[in-house]
C-alpha cells in the first residue's frame, strides 16, 4: 500500500502531459505557484495539513523546534521523492546524544492524501518563495 502510493505519484510525474522533460522535472520538484505572495490551492491546503500533522514537532512555518529539524533547511537537500519516503516510512536517529524519531505516516489518510500539497507548501517556504505565517489564497478560477 505504501509502496503503491509512492510509485503512483512518481508515475504521475513521469507520464505527465506533453511537457519538456526539464519542465516536468521542475514541476515535480517545485510544484507550487506563488504570485504576489498569494498561493494556489495545493500550497494552501499543504499549509493546513502541515498544521495538523507536522507543526507539533517541526514548528510554525516549517522552521523547526528544539526537538525537530527545520524543514525549510531540510528541503534544500531532500528531493521530492526522498521527502515522500521519509514521511511515509518515518525515520529514527537515536544515539546516546540524540533521540530523534519521525513516525511513519504511511497509513495516515490526512497525510498520504495530501502529501504532495504538504511538499509544495514546504518547498515554497524552503525556496524563499513564501514567507512565514498563513498564506493568502489566489482567487479561485
Amino acid at each position, binding site marked *: 500500500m505504501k509502496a503503491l502510493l509512492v510509485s503512483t505519484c512518481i508515475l504521475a510525474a513521469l507520464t505527465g502531459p506533453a511537457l519538456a522533460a526539464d519542465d516536468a522535472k521542475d514541476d515535480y520538484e517545485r510544484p507550487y505557484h506563488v504570485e504576489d505572495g498569494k498561493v494556489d490551492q495545493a500550497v494552501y491546503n499543504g499549509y*493546513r495539513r502541515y498544521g495538523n500533522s507536522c*507543526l507539533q514537532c517541526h*514548528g510554525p512555518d516549517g522552521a523547526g*523546534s*528544539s*526537538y525537530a529539524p527545520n524543514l525549510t533547511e531540510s528541503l534544500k537537500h531532500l528531493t521530492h521523492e526522498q521527502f515522500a519516503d521519509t514521511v511515509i516510512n518515518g525515520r529514527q536517529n537515536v544515539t546516546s546524544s540524540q533521540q530523534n524519531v519521525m513516525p511513519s505516516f504511511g497509513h495516515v489518510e*490526512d497525510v498520504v492524501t495530501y502529501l504532495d500539497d504538504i511538499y509544495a507548501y514546504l518547498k515554497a517556504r524552503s525556496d524563499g518563495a513564501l514567507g512565514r*505565517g498563513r498564506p493568502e489564497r489566489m482567487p479561485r478560477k
Partner: protein
Amino acid sequence: MLRRAALAIALAVSATVGASAVFPGASANDELLRLQKDPNQWAMANGNYASWRYSSLNQITRENVGQLRPTWQFSTGVLRGHEGGPLVIGDVMFIHTPFPNRVFALDLNNPGRVIWRYEPTQDPSVIGVMCCDTVNRGPAYADGKIILSQADTTLVALDAKTGKEVWKIKNGDPAKGETSTMSPLVVGDKVLVGISGGEFGVRAHVTAYGLKDGKQIWRAYSVGPDSDILFDPQKTTDMGKPVGANSSLKTWEGDQWKIGGGGTWGWISYDPELNLVYYGSGNPGTWNPAQRPGDNKWSMTIFARDANTGMARWVYQMTPHDEWDYDGVNEMILADNIQVGDKRVAKALVHMDRNGFAYTLNRENGDLLVAQKYDPAVNWASHVDMETGRPQVVREFSTAAGGEDTNTQNICPAALGSKDQQPAAYSPKTGMFYVPTNHVCMDYEPFRVSYTAGQPYVGATLSMFPPKGSDNMGNFIAWDAGKGKILWSKPERFSVWSGALATAGDVVFYGTLEGYLKAVDVKDGKELFSYRTPSGIIGNVNTFTHKGKQYIAVLSGVGGWAGIGMAAGLGGDSDGLGAVGAYKALSDYTQLGGVLTVFALPN
C-alpha cells in the same frame, strides 16, 4: 458490576465515618505526611500535598540573595527539554531526564557523585507520538521507593537505595498515542498517575496502583459512561447540584467520546483531611470544535475524587466545548483561609487555568468563588457567569462561531495558555500566589480531520505571537486569589516556563527561557538576583538544607512546548510585529542541554 457494588459500599462507609477518619488499610502515608512538612527535604515535586512550592527556610533572604552563587553543577547527558525538578530525601538528591528517562541518585555529602543511575529500555518509536517534546516532570518518592512514569507509560518503582526495579506495570499503549510526561503522586498506599495523548484522540484516565506491588486499584476516565468516570449521579456534584445520570455521554454526539481526550497529564494535589485528590483534564478530541458538538464533558474539568475509591465528589468544567485547546491540567493549589469578599474560605482551591482565568473554589464542595483574568490580554471570554459557572464567550474570538476553514484572529491567550503546566508558588506568609505566565496570542483555523489510532488528531492550524502592543511574551506575576487581582507583574522577554518557589526569606525564585535563575522580592517583584545557567529553564526550582545550610536547585535544558518557537521565534502574519525585539528566536539566546545547578550563599 461487582466492582461497582464494592465502590458503592466504600462510598457509604466513607460518608458515615466522616472525612477525616482514617481507613484501615488505606490510611494516609505517615512518612509522606511528615516529609512534606520538613523544609530540610524536598520530598514531593511541588513541595507538599497542597502543591504550595513554598519553603519555610529563611537563611536566604531578600537582603542576602544577591550573593547567591552556584556551588556545583551536573550534566544529565540528555539534550531535550528538562521539566520538573529535583527531589531531596536525607542526603540524597534524585534528578531525572526527558526520554530516555534516566534517573540519577546523587550524593549530597560528595556533591555530584552518582550513587546509582537508572535508564529504562524503551522503544524509541514512542518519541514520535509525544506531542510536544519528550519531557518528564519527575518521579515521586515514598516508602523507600522512587516511582517514575516513563514516556512509554511504564510505571516503575525503584529501590531508592540501589535503583533496582521493585515492580513495574504498563499504564497505557503508545501505539494508540498514549504516553506519559507527568509526575505521579503517592497518596496513602497508592500511586496515582495520569496519561498524555490529547493530540492523538486517546481517552484519558487517572489510575491508582498499589504502592507495594503496582496492582491496579481504581481507574477513573475523564469521559465516558458513569461506571468508567466513577461518578455517582446523585452524590457527584457540579456547581452544587447532582450531575445526574450519563453526565458525560449526553454531552457528546454518537461515539465521539471514545476518542474524547481529556488528557490527565498535569499535576495532582491531595487534601489528607478531606481524603480528596484534585486534578484537571485536558482538551476534548480534535481541536476542531465542529467535529464534536456538545459540552464534551468532562474535558477541561477540575475533579475532586475520593483517594480510596476514585469516586468523584465534585467537578467543575472551566471551558465547555473547547475551541482553543485550553487544557485544564494546571496545578491545583490548596490554600486555607482565603478571604473572598466578606467570607473567609477555610479550604480553598486556587487554579490558574490555561484559558487565562484564575479560579478560586471551595475545595470541600466545589463552590465557585472567584474567576478572574490573570492576564489583561485575555479576550476569548468577557467573564465567567458565577451562577452557571460558564465562560461568556466573545463571538469575535470563537473559533466555533467562525466555523471550519475560517481563520479566527487575535485570540488571547494562545493554545499555550496564559500559563501551562509550569507550577506557581503560594506563600502562606504573604497569602499571595506567584505565577509564571505566557503572554501570547494566536490565530486559529479549525478544519476537518480523520482519526487514525496512534496518529495526530489535531484539526487546527495556529500561529502565535505576542499581544498587540506588547514586546514581551511572558510575565511573572503576584496574584491575590481572594480578590482576583494582579498585585504586581514583572515582564519577561519569553514565556516563563519554569515552576516557581516562594520562601520565608521573602523571595520568589523562577527560571527563564534564556536560562536565568532569578530571585525577586515577594512584595513588588523587584529583581534581586539573576544567574545565567547553561541552557533555558523549563524546570521547577526547589530548596533544601544539607548539613544545616540552605541550597537552591534547578534543572536547565530548554525544550518542551516552549521549544516550539526555539528555531525561528514564534511566527504569524501579523504585520508590524517583526520589528519588535522580543519577537526574536529563542535560539539567539540559548541552546539545548540538561544541567542541574545547585546554589548557595558563600560560607
